[in-house]
């Protein structure tokens, strides 16, 4: 499951990246709505948000671009889910945001800064619109809290691999395996592991434990090269496609 920042370096490129990834057999694509204060994100994704916002990417344009993509007659895309800060949803109006998300063809929302206890209103809106509200579980989430979260979760469970922010890391912690094993006994929802994953061998180390992995910063870095290092868009798309191929292949081996 790759992650793409909407509007970095521009929405036209974002559409091409999503189409490219869609053709590589990924299970789902996360679309990051740029936010000015993304405290759950590490430097790579934050920098991409800052670049996108500097070019004045607006929420309405992101919805329009996604609508174009999902309604075009080309090959069908995997499900798209928005990764979006609650600050944006609240300002836009939760009801209006959910309606616009559905019209844009999104399958769900991930709201990293909205604790499950305070998500009741949004969860209800999502449910009636047929969208999934994907919940996150961190290594520091206690078993009691996890059980509460699982009661309302839908779509899949976003398992945060390490306590901290997004970003490429060398190793995944041992405790993650224990947590995934336990989670498997608690829910039938697919488990996707994110934060710190960039290489096929990490996917293989999760064999039998997780149903998917989320790759964010590694992809964002390839796209970021377009504006940071004047890399040709074609080359960036090739790199992203190659990474997706490698990760998809590793997932299938691991599965």
């Amino acid at each position, binding site marked *: 499951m790759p992650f793409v920042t909407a509007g970095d370096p521009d929405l036209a490129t974002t559409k091409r990246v999503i189409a490219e990834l869609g053709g590589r057999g990924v299970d789902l694509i996360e679309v990051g709505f740029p*936010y*000015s*204060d*993304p*405290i*759950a994100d*590490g*430097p790579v994704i*934050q*920098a991409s948000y*800052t670049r996108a*916002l500097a070019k004045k990417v*607006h*929420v309405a344009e992101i919805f329009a671009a996604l609508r174009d993509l999902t309604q075009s007659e080309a090959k069908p895309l995997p499900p798209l889910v928005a990764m979006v*800060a*609650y*600050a*944006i*949803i*609240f*300002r*836009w109006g939760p009801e209006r945001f959910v309606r616009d998300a559905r019209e844009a063809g999104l399958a769900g929302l991930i709201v990293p*800064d909205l*604790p499950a206890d305070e998500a009741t209103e949004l969860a209800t809106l999502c449910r009636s619109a047929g969208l999934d509200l994907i919940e996150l579980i*961190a290594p*520091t*989430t*206690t078993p009691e*809290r996890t059980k509460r979260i699982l009661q309302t979760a839908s779509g899949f469970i976003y398992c945060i691999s*390490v*306590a*901290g*922010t997004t970003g490429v890391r060398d190793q995944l912690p041992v405790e993650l395996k224990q947590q995934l094993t336990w989670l498997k006994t608690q829910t039938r929802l697919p488990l996707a592991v994110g934060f710190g994953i960039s290489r096929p061998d990490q996917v293989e180390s999760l064999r039998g434990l997780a149903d998917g992995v989320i790759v964010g910063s590694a992809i964002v870095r390839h796209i970021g090269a377009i504006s940071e290092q004047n890399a040709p868009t074609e080359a960036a798309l090739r790199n992203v496609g190659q990474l997706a191929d490698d990760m998809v292949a590793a997932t299938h081996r691991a599965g």
Partner: protein
Amino acid sequence: MHALEQLTAEYARAKVDPAFAAELEGLFRHYIGRPSPLYFAERLTARCGGAKIYLKREDLNHTGAHKINNAIGQALLTKRMGKTRVIAETGAGQHGVATATACAHFGLPCVVYMGEEDIRRQRLNVFIMRTMGAEVRPVTSGSRTLRDAINEAMRDWMSSVADTHYIIGSVVGPHPFPMMVRDFQSIIGRETRRQCLEQLGRLPDEVVACVGGGSNSAGMFYPFVEDRSIKLTGVEPGGRGVKPGEHASTLSFGVKGVLHGSYSYVLQDADGQTLDVHSVSAGLDYPGVGPEHSYWKDSGRVQYTPVGDQDALSAFDLLAKLEGILPALESSHAIAQVVKTAGQRKSDEIIVVCLSGRGDKDVYEVARLRGETI
């Protein structure tokens, strides 16, 4: 979330523990130098020609501002929780200095996140923090000021929460921080109330304090909230003008929104993106405000009003020349408001202003604005 639940529970226990209160009281008295005086500003009163103006001298606290009240309180809580490392954010550097000081006192390692732009404006405080043994980490993301320093500190905390406490410097961030910081700062208002009764024989007619994130004002106002006849005035940084980006007057011009884990007034655009802010004072340069201030605004209990850079700079000069007191640029906003309004009151009326900090840290910036070098 787990960290916040743990902190909420631990703070609830500490709050009712007489041993914790006694230790805090001892530190307030012998380390910070409390109670801070309530001082009659006679020449300023004569100049304004109206109500008697009293200054609550938080500038006379150890480290020169009210920030130490909260830093010492939370550092004591850190020890109680058995955590061994402290992180903090700072804007003007006063909270950073206060935290570095509290950590030196308790022997705790300390990392302070500070925006690159603020490091430039406040190099005296950077020097002090480093001398106290704290590590000052420059923040180069976003607007490179207070809000980005908070983002970085929160990021650090997410990966270090097992052994680290985050001493947030204002009444902002997720619960329980706004409540806890207000409680530690309420010593300001409690003392002021008692001093008014002892020294003046009655309560004041108006209490004025500056509002950035809102910690000195929350601490000053909270013990007066139930005294309905007392006017409470919060003074926001009006900057250079009313256009977005020119000021940091969150309550005067903001909208209801979410920032740093609380629901409050925020300066943001129609997409929910936080707006850049400006104030001559680095400590007021924040696009959000404590949620309790938003409640007081909506309930009408506190009046909030902006005061611009120029008026604050004039008040900085005026208080120095008339009273021999160099106020922080933050507190100068509150002084400026009183200079504007004291003349409209009768001479038997009383206004108390929270002089939240001293102005030594601001002399480089004020000199730069005057075109002087020191």
